[in-house]
């Protein structure tokens, strides 16, 4: 990273390492045609965060021939590049130019245009109602300070002319939602809101026509203004989280290289791949559809698909699921299912079948409205009849009833929930946790059980070198020219295999050069040097002996040999996420039961469970089993938080009451999750829970405040003493108190645990095949 303090990018670098640079065909497929040969590509560059980043990237791009313009959007962490197609311009140079400045770039699809439109509509409505509220308040204050007779009438008429169109323009959001609820025989907060604003407008209009003293136009538009602010905040919060999540690295490929019978190669989008097509998959690419290997041997990483932590060897005949990452060798595979019927589609089917807590969940505000609105409407009706029968003046009775409705209109209630949630989401956001919507936070506050996936969630999913032992067994006449560790690191640097990568990353210092390094998929690497042939890989390959004596080992090992004589042995372990132990302890402390659901083999799962002090764990689970485990738990009356990252976790994520995923998760897992955390540290989970619980208690306090205000204000209205002035003062103070109370959540947040990596304990990784 080239500048500033490290922030959220830590985890994203991990994600970048997983996905290779998008190919030129993929870039072309994702770009948009602007006409006249101009194309536009949107790239997500999650790591940029200051002014230097902007100019570095923009300058690097505009210097390239063929690029019309490049503009960075720092808020969305995106770069929009316009370039000329043809003239031999390779779109991949865009990505390489960005990568060469030290930033990882990912493709980004601009699919959120519709949502942006709603946001802009809301902001426009806020602006319009704010303008109206200001002007009408100006006129109302003049009336309250003593304008009389024709002057007062004129002020009322002007107010009416301003308020009318605003009611239609800014109120439509509430009318639409209230109508939708009523049509289905339900009621929500928008029903009393719509009723109050329309009634207050028409009663005021009627009063104005009859030269009366009081009109409520200011109440109408101020209510709309306040409520729209709440609505807009709610929407913007979701918008921000969503665009940040879609901006992350995309893990599933958009297409694949199809090899036709005559050997021609063509890059086709995923949807156009038919069963029986031969696909060429280079090392470092993900497989787009379910397929069977035809030629080639390679190691494949299935951790996102099945939760297995160790790479598996793929040979001709091996069946591979969509989403599997090809690590070491080139493969030619035959598609066995179209994208719609691939493993991924099966998982999506399971997800749809798993009706999670979110479908049944009713938001707090709606539940409050279910009690609130009948009471309010009943109160207004009762005061109408009481006054009517008491003094026989039905017009006065009507005015009192409207005053009751306006005073009780849930202005503070409408702000009570969104303001707290926006403040809480902001607090989480600055600590690297993104919340998709407000209801997720409410649901999170309710949980009493947390279930974790193992690979990639409790552990980092990447191995780390933990030990090396020299095997000095009377070495022959030929000796290595350099330190064995340096040789191993140099050879390891040539492979994408995670163990090789870990070896290369662990060594710092000058590396010896080798003329030829060949990779033998499923076995290891071979390098020829003047002093002999070095081999780096499993023991059988490196030493040429069959040894299957330590199958139960929880750690994996790699051997470096010179002419089949072992030089050094390296052992690796998958390391726990930083602060995993703290997070689990803190969850237990908050009264949450913790369990592990893993697709990996029992041995490594047990090891992780015992290290974290988790008693309940299950291993070797298929996606369906995980979902069932979650639903059984839910059926016994528990509210489950599911934390997982793989494709195989996605159905369980959507079946759970609420779910979380790390930023490194598969696309589908991230989409299924309600919350996504960017930092490596697992303490994001406990932090999110703590914040959600605090937010939930603040929301309850706000409800209490709003209802307390009503208890005082409603009698005033019922006894007919409420004037527009009293209503305006009461409404504003209650809203300000509620907002002020919500802001108390902005406390100091704990530091993220990214720095704790070094102290994190390690756990066993399965032995490579």
């Amino acid at each position, binding site marked *: 990273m080239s500048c500033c303090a490290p922030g959220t990018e830590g985890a994203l670098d991990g994600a970048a390492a997983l996905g290779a640079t998008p190919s030129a065909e993929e870039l072309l497929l994702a770009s*948009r045609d602007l006409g006249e040969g101009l194309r*536009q590509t*949107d790239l997500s560059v999650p790591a940029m965060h*200051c*002014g230097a980043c*902007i*100019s570095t990237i*923009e*300058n690097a791009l*505009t*210097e390239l021939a063929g690029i019309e*313009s*490049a*503009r*960075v*959007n*720092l*808020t*969305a962490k*995106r770069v*929009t*590049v*316009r370039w000329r197609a043809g003239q031999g311009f390779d779109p991949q140079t865009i990505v390489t130019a960005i990568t060469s400045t030290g930033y990882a770039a990912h493709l980004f699809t*601009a699919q959120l*245009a519709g949502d*942006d439109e709603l946001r*802009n509509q809301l*902001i*426009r409505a806020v*602006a*319009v109602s704010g*303008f109206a509220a*200001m*002007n009408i308040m*100006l006129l109302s204050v003049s009336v309250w300070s003593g304008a009389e007779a024709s*002057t007062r009438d*004129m002020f009322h008429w*002007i107010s009416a002319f*301003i308020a009318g169109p605003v009611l239609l323009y800014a109120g439509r959001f509430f009318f639409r939602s209230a109508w939708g609820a009523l049509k289905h025989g339900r009621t929500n907060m928008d029903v009393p809101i719509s009723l109050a604003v329309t009634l207050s407008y028409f009663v005021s209009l009627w009063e104005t026509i009859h030269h009366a003293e009081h009109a409520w136009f200011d109440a109408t538009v101020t209510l709309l203004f306040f409520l729209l602010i709440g609505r807009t905040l709610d929407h913007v919060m979701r918008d921000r989280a969503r665009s940040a999540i879609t901006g992350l690295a995309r893990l599933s490929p958009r297409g694949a290289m199809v090899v036709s019978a005559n050997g021609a190669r063509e890059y086709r989008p995923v949807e156009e791949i038919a069963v029986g097509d031969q696909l060429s998959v280079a090392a470092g690419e993900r497989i787009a559809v379910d397929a069977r290997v035809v030629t080639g041997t390679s190691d494949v990483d299935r951790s996102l698909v099945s939760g297995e932590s160790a790479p598996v060897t793929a040979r001709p005949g091996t069946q591979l699921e969509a989403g599997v990452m090809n690590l070491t060798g080139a493969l030619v595979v035959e598609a066995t299912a179209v994208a719609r019927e691939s493993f991924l589609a099966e998982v999506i089917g399971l997800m749809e079948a798993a009706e999670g807590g979110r479908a049944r969940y009713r938001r707090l505000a709606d539940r409050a409205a279910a009690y609130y609105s009948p009471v309010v409407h009943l109160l207004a009706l009762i005061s109408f009849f009481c006054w009517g029968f008491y003094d026989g003046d039905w017009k006065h009775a009507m005015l009192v009833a409207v005053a009751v409705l306006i005073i009780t209109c849930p202005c503070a209630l409408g702000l009570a929930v969104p303001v707290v949630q926006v403040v809480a989401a902001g607090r989480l956001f600055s600590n690297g946790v993104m919340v998709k919507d407000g209801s997720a936070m409410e649901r999170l506050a309710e949980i009493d059980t947390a279930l974790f996936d193992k690979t990639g969630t409790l552990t980092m999913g990447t191995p780390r070198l933990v030990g090396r032992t020299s095997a000095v067994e009377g070495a022959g006449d030929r000796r290595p020219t350099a330190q064995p560790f340096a040789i191993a690191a140099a050879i390891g640097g040539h492979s994408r295999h995670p163990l090789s990568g870990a070896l290369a990353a662990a060594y710092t210092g000058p590396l010896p050069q080798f003329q030829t390094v060949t990779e033998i998929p499923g076995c290891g690497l071979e390098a020829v040097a003047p002093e002999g042939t070095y081999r780096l890989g499993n023991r059988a390959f490196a030493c040429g002996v069959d040894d299957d004596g330590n199958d139960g080992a929880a750690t994996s090992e790699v051997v470096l040999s010179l002419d089949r004589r072992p030089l050094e042995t390296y052992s690796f372990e998958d390391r726990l996420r930083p602060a995993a132990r703290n997070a689990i302890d803190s969850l237990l402390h908050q009264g949450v039961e913790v369990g592990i659901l893993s697709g990996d083999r029992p041995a490594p799962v047990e090891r992780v469970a015992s290290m974290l002090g988790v008693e309940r764990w299950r291993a070797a689970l298929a996606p369906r089993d995980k979902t069932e485990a979650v639903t059984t738990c839910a059926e016994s009356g528990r509210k489950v938080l599911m934390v997982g990252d793989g494709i195989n976790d996605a159905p369980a994520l959507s079946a759970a009451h609420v779910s979380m995923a790390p930023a490194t998760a598969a696309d589908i897992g991230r989409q299924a999750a309600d919350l996504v955390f960017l930092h490596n540290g697992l303490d994001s989970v406990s932090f999110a829970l703590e914040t959600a619980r605090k937010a939930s208690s603040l929301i309850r306090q706000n409800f209490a405040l709003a209802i307390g205000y009503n208890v005082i204000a409603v009698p005033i209205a019922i006894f007919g003493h409420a004037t527009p002035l009293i209503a305006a003062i009461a409404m504003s103070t209650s809203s300000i108190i509620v907002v002020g109370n919500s802001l108390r959540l902005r406390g100091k947040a704990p530091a993220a645990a990214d720095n704790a990596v070094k102290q994190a304990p390690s756990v066993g990784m399965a032995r490579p095949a």
Partner: protein
Amino acid sequence: MSTLVYLIPIALSLGGLSLAAFLWSIKSGQYEDLDGAAWRVLDDGDGATRHGEQPDDRRA
């Protein structure tokens, strides 16, 4: 009293003017990149960046 005849239209049109200005600023994308704008103001333009241009991704 007679002052009201022109004072009120003035007040309303001033308010309307600011409303129009705000709506225009939303429409022209002034709020698209608040963080970036804060940094760009410090950039003295030595680089080759073409500042006037705005590839606009909203009109998708």
